[in-house]
């Protein structure tokens, strides 16, 4: 490996701009301000340019590339907010036509380019991955040499190094002990060597950037793990009041969990309540105060066979509200939606049209109607057809939209001693169509409803990794941005005393330290070359 040997005897890796021991500029001796960014150490990637692997490595090592990646991700993320993402458009619509019909040609282009699912697209994930790569490589390439450089720095620096600092002064007749004492009183760590001083404060802040990058990498790893099987469950569970349902994602071989919905509660704000009076009177509808499900959690024995009537053991009761999920094992249930007054049972009476006389009542369970209802004395009703959510289809035939009893309709056959062959009628909500001239009809006699609650079922084994990453990131950012690394060098040069100072940020603070120092000793105030040059 090529090395550069400095006149102080220290041998530096190729690419070094300031000698890692004494600080002498190695590339040129011209009087410019030294770039202290990484202590003038060689960025490792710059050192080797051999194989293809090195080339890739060098590419990702560049901060310029990293910033470009940030900017590209930023722009892509912004594009994704122009129109709603696919997950936010109404369910059961075809995205292909939805974007065009809602947002016109622009919407169509948006859809065709795949921006409707931008954040889950392969190229967005690749961008994030490349950013991760860039963070890792750039940190390795800079962090390690910086660590070495700061660790090996000497007290006595080269004259040229001193002169090239932004803050510099030459004084005479300075009491070094006085300077040392003052610096220590400012809580600098001071080292002495042959009458020269090196004072530093807040070195740990230089590690902030690397600490926060570690945090980011952990965070991204957590985000990546979410895609791995078994780490993550996201499902929705609808339960009717008074019913039990198995919780998706919980395994039958370990004992399946069941949830019973005891009650769903919906509370509204009282319009008369004084403090919100003016706000509530200006909105049309009511404002919700609380969505709540009172539930009971059950568990089956292990090795429960799916579908078999479960033998349930009660685990616990709970209340689920928005912002107050219900937790068990590694699962959490969140209140997400509800449906009020779903039709559950419908009652009818068999009525003789001419007399209005009634021959018994039947109650149809809309989730499981009987085939036959015997009303006694030779009267009975049969259900020929049942449409839970009635609609006339394209062929003008009665059919059902789905299996939810939102608009129930029936074809009844009514039998009586007078009409042993039976009479048919189509009965729905506010519909009664007879096949021919009937003697009897089904008259509506009441309805029972139930509320439903919808709960999001969530298991997320990646949370702790994400949280850890977040904490480390915040520590790193704070460490790096709220503290700064200040250094002051004092060197005796024959009759003179040279002073130079550097900080990675907050020059204002450093200057205040130096003013205080100049005040307390004979040291000349350090001049700021950047200000003078303007």
């Amino acid at each position, binding site marked *: *490996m090529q090395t550069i040997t400095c006149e102080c005897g220290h041998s530096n890796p190729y690419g070094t701009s300031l000698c890692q021991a004494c600080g002498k500029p190695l590339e040129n001796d011209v009087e410019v301000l030294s770039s202290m960014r990484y202590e003038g150490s060689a960025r490792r990637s710059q050192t*080797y340019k*051999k*194989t293809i*692997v*090195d080339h*890739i*490595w060098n590419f990702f090592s560049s901060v310029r590339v990293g910033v470009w990646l940030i900017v590209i991700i930023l722009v892509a993320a912004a594009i994704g907010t122009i129109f709603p993402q696919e997950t936010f458009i109404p369910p059961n619509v075809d995205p292909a036509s939805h974007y065009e019909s809602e947002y016109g040609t622009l919407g169509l282009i948006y859809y065709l380019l795949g921006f409707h699912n931008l954040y*889950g697209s*392969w190229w967005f*994930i*690749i961008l994030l*991955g490349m950013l*991760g*790569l860039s963070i*890792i*490589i750039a940190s390795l390439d800079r962090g390690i040499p910086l660590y070495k450089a700061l660790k090996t720095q000497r007290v006595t620096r080269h004259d040229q190094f001193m002169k090239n600092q932004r803050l510099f002064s030459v004084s005479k007749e300075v009491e070094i002990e006085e300077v040392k004492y003052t610096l220590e009183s400012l809580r600098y760590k001071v080292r002495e060597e042959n009458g020269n001083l090196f004072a530093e404060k807040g070195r740990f802040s230089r590690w902030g950037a690397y600490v926060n990058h570690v945090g980011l990498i952990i965070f991204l790893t957590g985000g*990546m793990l979410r*895609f*791995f*099987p*078994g*780490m*993550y*469950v*996201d*499902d929705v569970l609808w339960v009717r009041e008074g019913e039990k*349902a*198995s919780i*998706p*994602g919980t395994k*039958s071989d370990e004992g399946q969990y069941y949830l019973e919905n005891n009650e769903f509660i919906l509370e509204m704000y009282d319009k008369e309540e004084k403090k919100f009076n003016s706000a509530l009177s200006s909105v049309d509808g009511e404002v919700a105060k609380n969505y709540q499900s009172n539930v009971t959690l059950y568990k089956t024995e292990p090795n429960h*066979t*799916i*579908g*078999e009537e479960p033998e349930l053991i009660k685990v616990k009761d709970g209340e689920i509200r928005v912002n107050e999920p219900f937790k068990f094992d590694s699962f959490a249930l969140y209140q997400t939606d509800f449906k009020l007054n779903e039709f559950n049972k419908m009652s009818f009476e068999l009525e003789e049209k001419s007399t209005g006389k009634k021959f018994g009542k039947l109650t149809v369970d809309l*989730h*499981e*109607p009987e*085939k036959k209802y015997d009303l006694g004395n030779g009267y009975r009703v049969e*259900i*020929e*057809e*049942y*449409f*839970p*959510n009635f609609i006339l289809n394209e062929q003008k035939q009665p*059919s*059902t*939209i*789905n*299996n939810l009893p939102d608009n129930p309709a029936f074809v009844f056959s009514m039998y009586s001693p007078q009409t042993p062959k039976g009479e048919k009628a189509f009965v729905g909500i506010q519909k009664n169509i007879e096949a021919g001239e009937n003697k009897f009809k089904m008259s509506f006699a009441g309805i029972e409803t139930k509320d439903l609650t919808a709960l999001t079922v969530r298991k997320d084994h990646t949370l702790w990794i994400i949280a850890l990453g977040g904490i480390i990131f915040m520590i790193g950012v704070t460490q790096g941005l709220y503290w700064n690394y200040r250094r002051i060098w004092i060197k005796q040069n024959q009759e003179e005393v040279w002073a130079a100072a550097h900080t990675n940020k907050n020059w204002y603070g450093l200057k205040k330290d130096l003013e205080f120092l100049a005040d307390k000793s004979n040291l000349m105030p350090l001049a700021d070359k950047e200000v003078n040059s303007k």
Partner: protein
Amino acid sequence: MKKKRFWFRSALLAILVIAIGYTIYNSIYEDSGTYIKKGDKAPNFVLTDLNGNRVELEDYRGKGVFLNFWGTWCKPCEREMPYMQRQYETYKKQGVEILAVNVSETNVSVKNFADRYRLSFPIPMDKQREVTKAYGIGPIPTTILIDKNGKVVGRTSESLSEEKIISFMEKIKP
């Protein structure tokens, strides 16, 4: 030194590329998380069919099982039913069984439907959607192919043509 550097860099890059690649793969087949997919063991279940008979998946071990999830209101399900019936008649003798699990509908509706299409294969009634949930069924129809060892060898949510059904039958024929 140079060798070491090369291997270190190559290894790190490779790990990251594989991790990103696998993430993308999983994000494309996002359904794979909790759902039963190709290669898994088909979880056993017990249901009562339309005629009141107990149907347990494990009893079909040794046979290929064409496990279809459907509903009477779903048009694509309706389209593939006659094909399924016809191929059932052919392949039943060759050891392939069709289980057409109905997703949470009423006996009245399903009975009418089954009569209309003269369906003779068992129709297990998943009233509580227990099996539907355990198999992670999203859109219907979804067909899961189980081989004679009880292993899932295929899963699709498309509406099937008769040719497709035949090829599936051939695949799971013991």
